[in-house]
């Protein structure tokens, strides 16, 4: 990898690049799809190539190729430089990169059981067992779909400032979709992702058959017992999974500095946060939200970003105040700060963009029982299905799946499809307590054009939110 990177960087320098970087990424992975008990496909893939970025005349150029022989590398470098140079007059704001990226190091994810050495037989068995566990519940489940994927990635980053960063990681991912049906009661749909970095040992920890069977039983109960949620303004206790999606959407995304600058306006949108918003209050003192790439075993794990900058936790909202944005070197230069290592690319084919890693709300000191006992009338929303948020990350909606009535401090029966539609400030301002149990869920975050799917974790403890108007999906 070093040789190819060196060829690319030397040529870029010779051809007049003010800055150049090369990222070579090799990945290999396999996946299995099980649909209603039948194996639809077994897939194996290998992908390798180089992504090159150059700055010339203040213009930023990117090129990638899946061919690594000298001729192709040179063609890619020339393409990147030629396109950037030709377009330079149209760059009304010249690109600058903050600081220097010159670390020489390597990092790796600890792996006990190499996920690509684990036999397909064992992976197959896991899915078949999960299918059996679903069917053993006795619930009517007309739709059951699993996808299990494991892959390894090796990468090398180098630039003309002297950086040289090598890494190796392994990731595992499970997606499942289960639909339960009951005559006269319709259907209920659960869709879930599990993901982690590390070896196959992480997949074992998921206890997949037990976990999906429990989900199926819950779906069945939702259909059997679910009643209409209370109307009007109520208090809410939101489970970790719901808190996770909330902090991802209404804290992580609006804190991306490229959005704040309008650079993602035509795709994922902009942000309610303005360049001068740091220090403004957005929520109660119970709202501290952190994005931390360095959590061992996490799905969004990395120690150096794709610009060679060392990763660290970022406190985006601190005790209810907008505290820090997510930066790459380019936005950091605009804001006059240092990059906090948020540049991630989904592979060599993609330019690094500002991305979240593992975003969570910091725990408080309440137990779930303590959160609930002080609620007169409310709903505990443990899981969700539908969600969305506007492109400034202000007006958002979450519809509960597993959700319970809270009546005079006690969790009672299931309620069906409670819907909350709130503004970011409306929601965070009403948080009056956070639980102490921190949990994460995995997600695949989409951003950029072409869209880049990025593994992330999101989470938090259960939280209590006062005085939210509750709707219901018919």
């Amino acid at each position, binding site marked *: 990898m070093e040789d190819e990177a060196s060829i690319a960087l030397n040529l870029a320098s010779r051809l007049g690049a003010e800055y150049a970087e090369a990222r070579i990424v090799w990945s290999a992975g396999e996946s299995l799809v099980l649909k209603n008990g039948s194996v639809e*496909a077994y897939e194996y893939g*290998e992908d390798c190539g180089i992504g090159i970025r150059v700055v010339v005349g203040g213009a930023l150029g990117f090129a990638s190729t899946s061919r690594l022989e000298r001729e192709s590398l040179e063609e890619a470098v020339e393409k990147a430089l030629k396109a950037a140079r030709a377009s330079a007059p149209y760059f009304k704001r010249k690109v600058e990169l903050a600081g220097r990226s010159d670390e020489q190091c390597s990092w790796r994810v600890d792996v006990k059981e190499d996920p690509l050495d684990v036999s397909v037989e064992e992976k197959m068995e896991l899915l078949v067992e999960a299918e059996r566990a679903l069917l053993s519940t006795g619930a009517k489940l007309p739709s059951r779909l699993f996808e299990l994927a494991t892959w390894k990635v090796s990468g090398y980053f180098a630039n003309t400032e002297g950086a040289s960063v090598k890494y190796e990681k392994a990731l595992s991912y499970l997606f499942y979709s289960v639909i339960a049906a009951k005559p006269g009661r319709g259907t209920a749909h659960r869709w879930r992702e599990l993901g982690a970095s590390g070896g196959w040992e992480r997949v074992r920890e998921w206890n997949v058959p037990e976990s999906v069977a429990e989900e199926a039983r819950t779906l069945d109960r939702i259909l059997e017992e679910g009643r209409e949620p209370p109307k009007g303004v109520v208090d809410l206790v939101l489970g970790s999974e719901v808190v996770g999606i909330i902090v991802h959407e209404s804290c992580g995304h609006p804190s991306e500095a490229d959005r704040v600058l309008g*650079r993602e306006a035509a795709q994922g949108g902009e942000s309610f946060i303005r360049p001068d918003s740091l220090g403004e209050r957005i929520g109660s003192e119970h709202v501290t939200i952190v994005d931390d790439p360095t959590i061992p075993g996490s799905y969004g794990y990395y120690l150096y970003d794709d610009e060679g900058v060392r990763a660290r936790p970022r406190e985006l909202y601190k005790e209810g105040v907008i505290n820090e944005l997510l930066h790459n070197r380019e936005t950091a230069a605009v804001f006059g700060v240092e990059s906090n290592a948020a540049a991630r690319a989904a592979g060599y084919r993609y330019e690094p963009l500002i991305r979240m890693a593992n975003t969570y709300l910091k725990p408080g000191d309440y137990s779930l029982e303590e959160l609930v006992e002080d609620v007169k009338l409310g709903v505990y929303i443990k899981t969700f299905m539908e969600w969305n948020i506007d492109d400034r990350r202000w007006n958002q909606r979450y519809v509960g799946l597993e959700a319970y009535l809270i009546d005079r401090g006690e969790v009672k029966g299931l309620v069906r499809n409670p819907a909350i*539609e709130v503004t970011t400030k409306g929601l965070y301002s009403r948080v009056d307590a956070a639980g102490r149990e921190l949990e994460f869920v995995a997600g695949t975050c989409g951003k950029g*054009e072409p869209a880049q799917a990025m593994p992330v974790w999101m989470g938090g403890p259960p939280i209590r939110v006062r005085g939210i108007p509750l709707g219901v999906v018919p």
Partner: protein
Amino acid sequence: MSLGLAESILEIALKKGADEGAVLVRRSEKCMLRFSNNTLDVVKSWISEEAEVYLGVEKKALVVSLSRLDRETIERSIERVLKSAKYVEPCEDYAPLPSGEYSYPEIPETFDPRVAELENPAELVEMAISAALEEGAQRTAGTLSYGVEYKALATSTGLGGEDRGTRIRISIRAFADRESSGHGVDVSRLLSKFDPERAGRDAGRYAKMATNPVEGEEGVYDAVLSPLVVANLLGDVAKIGASAFMVDAGISFLTGKLGERIASEILTVHDDGRLPNGPASTKFDDEGIPTRRTTIVERGVLKNYLHNTKTAKKFGVESTGNAGWIAPRPWNIVVEPGDYTLDEMVAEVDNGFLVTNNWYTRYQNYREGLFSTICRDALLRIERGEIVGASKGLRISEKMLRLLSGVEGLTKERRQVQWWDAEVPVVAPFMLVRSVNFTKARV
């Protein structure tokens, strides 16, 4: 050249023990210019060569994807997959690859050397930006992307061949102020039919019309949906609803509805793999079946799902030429036009909105088609047949089939739409839908 490579990979696969196989090789050169705040941000280019290999072994479907195409990598990867195959259980619905005598006539308007060798793409971006600013916008953002792709398919049943295509696409969002925006798109296979200026004008005009928005009120309204919105929603109808894979999985909201009325009788929707100038048009699918036009909805009745050979066998029908080895996929979705002009359509609305764009369509339950989607960019208030101002803060919360049943009008004019949040290309008119449920954040 690519066909030779596909055939040699196929030969390796069969020699190593596959019962049957198909190999798809794609070579492409693509570029993209991204801009925001009226200036370029980055210029990107891609040179790519990839192979996908389908192997059928003892009724098991195996797929290998490779971007490094040296013999050692190809042989090692195929060996690995064939070795692992013994642990994979046979697929209950396995169907052999199709065979037969097929021809693949050229599709008009799918290749333009001027797109492949585009000179001064930044000038096209400038053209779109200037048009938006002339209409009253203050700033713009978006992408111009273009390129050429060659594909070659070889199957062990003797099907396949070569195809090539060019594409050029612009997506531009314009802002008149922080909260007032509009979006315009254009996509074409030919430079002569590509109009970045019009996309810029659409975006700028809507941005200007969206100024001084007031908070919308929750309720049930009539809605005029723009081609961008129609593309987003009908893309889901094709991709999720009409996919025989999703139907068979029990996830689709069109499960069990073949032959039933699922939409207003004025709605007719096709999938067309041979649409001249269609962004996804291609001569053959991944199994070597010639692509064709398949009617999904005819006068409101669900006529067909989209199939590959495997789903077709299970449903007892012929493949519709939409493979995907594992799951079928739509090509170009075409909505038949109506008689309305946009002005006439707006005049029909007593109390409602013109929704010019949407995004973030998400489902509470795919099988029931229960979803919401956010109104994005200009959301224009219509009262007594006239646009009276702009609104903000609303989302559409609906059931897909209820929404489709409420369609009461379609315009004569249609646009070919494809953008970041509507990846399935759709030829879409404006659509008048009665009694649409709008909700909003209340705190």
